[in-house]
C-alpha cells in the first residue's frame, strides 16, 4: 500500500493540494472567502495547457501566464464585488467560476465539452519547488506588515478602516496573491493529470480548497498546509471508498467546525511549536521564563 503514496502522481497531487489550501487561505486570512476558486484554477489550467500544447510555447512562460491570468481575474472580480460589501466579492468569484465553465465548454479549440490532452508532463520536483516557494512566500507574508494588516482586517473590518487602513486595497491584494497561487496550482494540475475538461473544474475543487484550509486551520498558513496533507493522505488511504469521498469531506467539515471552529491547527498551536524550536536554539535565554 505504501507504493500508492510514492507514485509521481500522488506526490504531484499532494503538492497541488497544498497549493490549493494555501491559496484559499490567503484571501481567508483577510476575511475574504473565495467561492469561485475552481474558476481561477481552471482558467490558468486551460491557458497554460493551450499555450504549451496548441501553441508550443515553453513551459515556464505558460506558468507565468497561468499565474498572471488568475491573479488578474481574481483582482478584477473581487474589485467589482468590493464596491459594495465583502460578501459580494465572494459572490463575484462564484459568478466567475460559473461563467468560466460555460466558456470552457464553448471554446472549440480546447475541445469543448470533451476537453483536451495537455502535453508536457510536469515532474514532482518542479511541483514541489513551486510549493516550497509559495510556502516560504506565504510565511514571509504572514510575518510582514501586509500579513498583519490582513489579520487586522479579518478581525475587524470596521476598526481597521477607522485606523486609516485602505481595507479595499488590501482585500484586493489578498485576492490577487491567492489567485496567483491558485493559478500555479491550476498550471501544475493541467500538466499533471494531462486530460482536462470543463467538468474537472466544478465547484468540487473549491470545496476541496476550503476544506483543507478550514479543517486544517485557517488562522495560519500551516493550518491550510496541514489540512491538505492530512486529507490527501487520508483520502488516498481510503481509496476503496472513493465514491464516498465527498461525504467524508462533508462530515469532516461539519464535525471539525462544530467543535474546533478555527480548524485543527490554531495560531496557539503554531506559537507553541515556534517557541519549542526557539527554546531549542536559545536554551539559556529561555530558561526561567514562563513563556
Amino acid at each position: 500500500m505504501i507504493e500508492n503514496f510514492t507514485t509521481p502522481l500522488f506526490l504531484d497531487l499532494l503538492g497541488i493540494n497544498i497549493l490549493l489550501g494555501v491559496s484559499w487561505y490567503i484571501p481567508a486570512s483577510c476575511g475574504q472567502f473565495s467561492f469561485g476558486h475552481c474558476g481561477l484554477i481552471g482558467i490558468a489550467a486551460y491557458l497554460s495547457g493551450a499555450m504549451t500544447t496548441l501553441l508550443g510555447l515553453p513551459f515556464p512562460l505558460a506558468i507565468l501566464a497561468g499565474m498572471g491570468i488568475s491573479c488578474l481575474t481574481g483582482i478584477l472580480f473581487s474589485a467589482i464585488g468590493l464596491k459594495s460589501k465583502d460578501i459580494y466579492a465572494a459572490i463575484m468569484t462564484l459568478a466567475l467560476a460559473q461563467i468560466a465553465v460555460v466558456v470552457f465548454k464553448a471554446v472549440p479549440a480546447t475541445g469543448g465539452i470533451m476537453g483536451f490532452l495537455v502535453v508536457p508532463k510536469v515532474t514532482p520536483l518542479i511541483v514541489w519547488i513551486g510549493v516550497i516557494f509559495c510556502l516560504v512566500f506565504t510565511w514571509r507574508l504572514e510575518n510582514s506588515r501586509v500579513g498583519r494588516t490582513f489579520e487586522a482586517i479579518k478581525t475587524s473590518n470596521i476598526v481597521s478602516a477607522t485606523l486609516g487602513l485602505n481595507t479595499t486595497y488590501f482585500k484586493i491584494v489578498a485576492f490577487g496573491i491567492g489567485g496567483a497561487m491558485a493559478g500555479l496550482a491550476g498550471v501544475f494540475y493541467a500538466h499533471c493529470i494531462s486530460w482536462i475538461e470543463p467538468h474537472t473544474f466544478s465547484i468540487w475543487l473549491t470545496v476541496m480548497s476550503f476544506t483543507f484550509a478550514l479543517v486544517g486551520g485557517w488562522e495560519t498558513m500551516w493550518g491550510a498546509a496541514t489540512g491538505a496533507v492530512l486529507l490527501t493522505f487520508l483520502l488516498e488511504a481510503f481509496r476503496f471508498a472513493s465514491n464516498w469521498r465527498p461525504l467524508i469531506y462533508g462530515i469532516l467539515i461539519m464535525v471539525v467546525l462544530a467543535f474546533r471552529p478555527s480548524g485543527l491547527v490554531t495560531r496557539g498551536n503554531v506559537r507553541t511549536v515556534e517557541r519549542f524550536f526557539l527554546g531549542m536554539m536559545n536554551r539559556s535565554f529561555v530558561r526561567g521564563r514562563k513563556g
Partner: protein
Amino acid sequence: MIIQIVNGLMLGSLYGLIALGYALVLGILGIFNMVQADVFMGGAVLGWIFITKLHLPLIMVIPAVMAGGVLLGLATEFFCVRRSLAVGSYFVPIATTIGLGLVLTTTVSNWAGANPLPISVPFQFTQVSLGDASFPLTNFIVFFTSLAIMSILAFFLKRTSLGLATRAVGENPEVSQLLGINTTRVIQMTFIISGVIGTLSGLLFGVMTGAAHPYMGEVVGLKGICLVIIGGMGSMSGAVIAAFIGGIAEVLTSVYWSVKYADAVLWLIMFIILLFRPLGLMGKVEELQRLQ
C-alpha cells in the same frame, strides 16, 4: 416570442420558490443555506420514491414530501447552524451547510445510481392550448402552485405573529430575546418553512421534467443564490421579481441564442446589475449592514 415569455414566466415561478428558500434563511441569519439545493433534490427524490416506487396517490405524496422538508430543515438547523453562528464569520455556516449538502448528494448518488430517476404522473403528457400554442399541463400546475405558495409565504410574513417574530429575530436577535422571543425556535421554524418550500419546489421540478437525479440541485441552487443577489439581499419581493426576470431571460437565451449559454446568462445579469446597482434591484443599505 410571447410563447417564450410565457414559458419564461412559468420557469420563473419555480425559480421564485427556489430563491425564496434562500431568501428566508438569508433574511433571518444572514447566511446562504447551501443545503437548500440538496433539499430541492431531496424533494424530487422523495417524489420518485413515493410516486414511482411506492405508487402512492398524489394526495398522499404532497404531505409526505412536505414532511421530508420539515425533517431536512430541522437537520440543517441542528447540524450546521446552531453551533456555527457563534463564530462570527459568515463563511463557517456556509461551509457546514456545504458539508451537509455533500453528505446528502453522496448518499443519494451511491444509493440510487448515476441514472436519472423517473417520475411519471398520469397527466404528464397532457397539453393545454392557448390560442395556437400548446403548453404542457405540468407547467401550468407548477406555475399556479408556485404562485400559491409564494402568496401564503407573503401572508405569513406580514400577518402572523410568527412572521413578525421572524422579522424581529432577523433584524436584531438580542433585542428579540429580551422581548421574550425564543430565537432558537423561530430559527427552527424558518428552516422548516424553507425546507418545505425546497422539497415542494423539487417535487414540482421533478414532475415538470419527469426525472430526478442526485446532482440536479447544484446548478439550480446556485441560480437561486444568484437570483437572490440580483433581487437584493434581504428582500423577498426582490427575489421573486428577479426570479421572473431570470426565467424569461433564460428561456429567451436558449431559444434565440444558444442553449449552451442559458446557464450563464443569470450570472451575467448579476454581474451587470452589481456593476450599476451594487445592492441589487431592491436591496436596502441597512439590510446589508447586518449581513457583514
